[in-house]
């Protein structure tokens, strides 16, 4: 889970943000404590605390005195905006680079993306149609 080459506190902050973005950590709900994060990821509690402090500085989490850290209202939308802005650079640029190596034009990519999206939709429709 924790990967090499990047500061752990950043990865901890991102894992909490991931949970907020995908909705598993709702706004106004209590964020995992430093010690819970440290035990779960098997990392130094001070490092986990640094990740949490970063989210508090950023306004994603806020402190309720004597209780713990909570997800600030509006965090999810703000994180979504931030992630969408980063999406082009982190996902589209590498995709274009690899496509170029393989001799695929941007138009080919568009067709490919539409095909795959249709196939995905078909698969999830089948799964929803047969709830087992």
């Amino acid at each position, binding site marked *: 889970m*924790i*990967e*090499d*080459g*990047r*500061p*752990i*506190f950043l990865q901890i902050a991102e894992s909490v943000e991931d949970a907020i973005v995908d909705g598993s950590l709702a706004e106004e709900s209590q964020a995992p404590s430093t*010690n819970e994060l*440290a*035990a779960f*990821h*098997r*990392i*130094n*509690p*001070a*490092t986990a605390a*640094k990740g949490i402090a970063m989210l508090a500085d950023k306004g994603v989490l806020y402190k309720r005195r004597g209780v713990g850290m909570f997800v600030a209202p509006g965090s999810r939308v703000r994180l979504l905006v931030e992630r969408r802005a980063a999406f082009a650079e982190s996902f589209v*640029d*590498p995709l274009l*680079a690899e496509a170029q*190596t393989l001799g695929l034009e941007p138009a080919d990519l568009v067709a490919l993306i539409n095909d795959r999206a249709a196939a995905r939709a078909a698969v999830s429709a089948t799964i929803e149609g047969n709830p087992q």
Partner: protein
Amino acid sequence: MTSVIEVKSLTKRYRDTLAVDDVSFAIEQNRIYGLLGRNGAGKTTVMSILTAQNFATSGEVRVFGEQPYENTRVLSRMCFVRESQKYPEDATARHAFGMARLFFPRWDQPLADRLIDDFQLPTKRTIKKLSRGQLSAVGVIIGLASRAEITFFDEPYLGLDAVARQIFYDRLLEDYATHPRTVILSSHLIDEVSNLLERVLVIDRGRIIMDEETDAVRDRAANIVGDSAAVDAFVAGREVIHRESLGRVSSVTVLGALTPADRARLAAAGLDVAPVSLQQLIVRTTQHAAGNGVGESAADAATTEEGALR
């Protein structure tokens, strides 16, 4: 932050070998430190001087602001778990824990009992009949249950299997979270312990070559992999600490965090970036130091990686 240990210009000479060479550092309260380095680098010597089990040739050592030698006030607040701890003949593990309970004022018996259970340690068998791993478990249990304000673990896991080592790491983190204290962990299994460490001290041939926050070192180096000509073009002017080639592909380890501009350049050149773990970084830097040393042969440098940090 308060320093609990202060070391100034510490030097230890054994006849004609310089084991510790003019070392200065401070250990801050309630943090977990890694004291890392190759065999014979001077780790155990430093720890035994700090715990008053060895004498410095010169330099100054302060623990809780005092000299540790024959100073019970200081010594009862420290616990040193050594790789080759000796126990009295015919003592059982139970006797060893009984003695520890008398010596350490913050000894926690319920924690000791729980750890005995965790490690499935036979407490009534004499210690000399215990297996190597069980002997290590005795030391680990004393180190954790003593809850000493400063605890040194010097390669505490000899003979402990992966499951038992994980129990040790988990219990250490768990107990540290509820009872913060200063821990100095010396280990060769750097990949296993790196996430537990808040700071790392790397000692190489008697000198401290790294004294930093562990997290700050994590993006300190990167492996650049790809076409040799493109790799060479990228690493020109950077500090290269390791280089490997296979046909036209090279993998080069460079020091220095990569900027977003660097990453864009790498992507444009079709080069891959692979992370460098703390263990790899330390292997590379201590190898690097050996390579630059006076009179070190190439063969010595080549055996560094396999021989030392396993």
